């Protein structure tokens, strides 16, 4: 597999890690057909999954239990919802909150009453409770109160809400954490990683989120019926679909990209491979040209519905809108009539559009070629154990070469200056969440996490330059165990060239939201709305089918808004 990766990287017209793995570019990524929520819905449609609601036991305050049962060809999963009546003063998106509007767990199979009772004592407590190996995901969500109340009010009077009001927020509820993979006692990833329906990454988590979106719509209709009685109406299907599910994500997610190089490589490598495959197409027909223009117009509409007050994001959205207009204009010049039209178009895009526009275009170019690229979704996971054991026979000289290859870009960084090491990644005592502090203003350096790979690689390099070139790593690490984690990382990167972010993760100007944006784009998120440089609100599954619509709608045609007829 290694040789294959390198072959593609060097010979098949793939964009290089040097180009792709910069924070500013990763922080401009958009969802694509390889994004995990799209992979999930595509599979569920192909396999005719069905979803029903065996329990819907909510009182007039909306408090109670609801279950959503998903049946696939081999297995059944159930989302168990605990709906609460939350006082406004307790509603916080921050991870240190201790109560939520609703709490959830994804159960492996069909729970009996004893399971529901056991989990009722734990799931509402979230981090303070414990789940078990029959639970795959633990999550919670809060209402967007203004929109929830507005929609509830309209429906209770027999009226439909205004589409524009729905678009302004985009969701009735937002999740504030979605925990999987063994967290708080849940099943380890190894329990489900071999299951066909969960190939790829984060599939149980995104199944959970899709079902939470369904609950949000069901919940508002229930409350409207309580309020309006016979006058109440359900939400119109087209309006309902305009509502996604929100998410509020902070720093807890940011170190993930640094801690899992082999996995990140697999994601980026799949997307870049897909792009290279499509760029290798020699000619396109009129249907493909028209199809692409239509996608570009839908992306423009999407960007026009993308609202952010953030100084960091708002100018990027304006630039994206301008980029997409330029792109649509360029299509009128016959640029796609040339040989290798997508490669030609991309070369123009790189010269003329912002990073937002460039990465949006990459996602759009892949879009029409599912038959050529969708299989790559199956490669978007990694066995992180395979490169764990250190090869002690490697010599100092070989490791220095490896540093040159993967961290040569870091050599000009003056790590002895304050600005280059201004930040410290640490874990707070409270809720054990990752945080980012100021090295020279707070007393936190003793708690620093190993999340500065470039600095650590340069420290290793400095030490190695004073060693004998022929010495083995086994001998070197016996004397210098403090460099062991870096040597292991280099070994991982030899097989995972897209695994390293080629920027200084402790620089004073580093923006953690770029890390979040990259990961969330692979989930399939849209409408990134940073609330600071270190937390972001997003929308997921907006325009996507609800479970009962999977049979009649193509989920891949639902991730961008439709043009008005």
């Amino acid at each position: 597999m290694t040789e294959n990766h390198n072959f593609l990287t060097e010979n098949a017209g793939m964009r290089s890690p040097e180009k792709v793995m910069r924070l500013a570019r990763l922080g401009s990524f958009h969802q694509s057909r390889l994004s995990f929520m799209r992979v999930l819905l595509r599979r569920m449609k192909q396999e005719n999954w069905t979803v029903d609601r065996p329990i819907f036991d909510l009182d007039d305050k909306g408090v109670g239990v609801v279950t959503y049962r998903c049946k696939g060809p081999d297995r059944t999963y159930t989302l168990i919802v605990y709906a609460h009546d939350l006082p406004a003063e307790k509603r916080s998106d921050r991870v240190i909150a201790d109560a939520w509007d609703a709490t959830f767990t994804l159960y492996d199979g069909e729970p009996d009453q004893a399971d529901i009772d056991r989990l009722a004592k734990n799931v509402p407590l979230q981090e303070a409770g414990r789940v078990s190996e029959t639970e795959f995901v633990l999550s919670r969500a809060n209402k967007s109160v203004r929109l929830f109340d507005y929609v509830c009010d309209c429906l209770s009077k027999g009226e439909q809400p205004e589409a524009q009001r729905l678009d302004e927020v985009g969701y009735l509820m937002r999740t504030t954490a979605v925990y999987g993979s063994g967290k708080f006692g849940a099943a380890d990833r190894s329990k489900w990683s071999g299951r066909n329906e969960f190939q790829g990454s984060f599939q149980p988590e995104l199944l959970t989120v899709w079902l939470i979106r369904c609950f949000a719509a069901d919940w508002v209709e229930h409350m409207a019926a309580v309020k309006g009685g016979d006058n109440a109406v359900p939400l119109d299907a087209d309006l309902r679909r305009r509502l996604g599910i929100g998410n509020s994500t902070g720093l807890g997610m940011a170190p993930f990209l640094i801690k899992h190089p082999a996995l990140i490589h697999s994601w980026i490598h799949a997307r870049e491979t897909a792009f290279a495959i499509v760029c290798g197409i020699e000619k396109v027909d009129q249907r493909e040209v028209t199809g692409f223009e239509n996608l570009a117009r839908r992306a423009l509409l999407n960007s026009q519905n993308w609202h952010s007050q953030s100084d960091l994001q708002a100018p990027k959205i304006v630039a994206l809108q301008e980029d997409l207009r330029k792109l649509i204009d360029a299509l009128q010049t016959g640029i796609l009539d040339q040989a290798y039209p997508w490669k030609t178009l991309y070369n123009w895009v790189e010269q003329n559009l912002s990073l937002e526009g460039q990465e949006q275009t990459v996602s759009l170019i892949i879009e029409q070629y599912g038959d050529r690229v969708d299989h790559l979704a199956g490669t978007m996971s990694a066995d992180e154990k395979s490169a764990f054991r250190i090869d002690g026979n490697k010599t100092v000289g070989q490791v220095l070469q490896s540093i040159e290859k993967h961290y040569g870009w870091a050599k000009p960084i003056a790590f002895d200056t304050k600005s280059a090491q201004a930040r410290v990644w640490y874990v707070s005592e409270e809720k054990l969440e990752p945080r980012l502090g100021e090295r020279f203003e707070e007393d936190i350096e003793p708690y620093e996490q190993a999340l500065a790979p470039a600095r650590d690689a340069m420290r290793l390099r400095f030490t190695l330059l004073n060693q004998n070139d022929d010495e083995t790593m086994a001998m070197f690490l016996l004397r210098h165990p403090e460099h062991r984690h870096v040597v292991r990382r280099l070994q991982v990167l030899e097989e995972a060239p897209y695994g390293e972010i080629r920027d200084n993760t402790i620089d004073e100007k580093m923006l953690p939201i770029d890390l979040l944006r990259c990961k969330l784009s692979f989930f399939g998120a849209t409408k990134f709305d940073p609330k600071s440089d270190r937390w972001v609100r997003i929308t997921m599954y907006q325009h996507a089918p609800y479970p009962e619509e999977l049979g009649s709608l193509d989920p891949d045609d639902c991730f961008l808004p439709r043009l008005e007829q």
Partner: protein
Amino acid sequence: MNWSMGETQDLAIRASKGAGLPWGLAEEASFAVAWLEQRNLPGVEALAKYLESIGQPNDYHAGFCPIGNGSWISDSGNWLGSFPLEVRQPLLLAPFIAQVVKNKTLNLAWAQNLLHISNNDAHIAAQSTLLGHALESCTLAVSDATFTEAKHSERIRDDREPWMTVLLEFAQRTYAPASEMSRLLGAGAGLNDND
């Protein structure tokens, strides 16, 4: 408390770092604990007792460390040549020895304890005080013993709980005390989400 393997591994890294091991060896300690627990051997207790023997974080010394010595064996592939060896908690050597054994069984012995180790398993053949506090002198030899591999477990047994508590205490040393300022600065979130 029904611990998953993943959270136990995460805890083992933090605890080892808290006790003074460098990051790379803390990762090895985590690997070793999971390897042993998957085979129903008391990895959590062995690591907890080893970390207790270190003293203050600055006192950490790789010399008698089963993780440091185990890593050397795994890195170098030099198993027989590394023995006799003096370490604490020799059980923690087993996962590293298993990495370098090929097509044979090895006997790891100390005090009145004897462990058979193959490339994917370990089996206690004789034991007295398996997890004592003493510095132990260990030997390693090729064995003609055979044993059947047990089914691997992916959960941590409930009786490990007291030792998980010890690991939690060591892990605590790696967490920065919270202040409202650090909450706001460090997490960067606002105060009110009633929108």
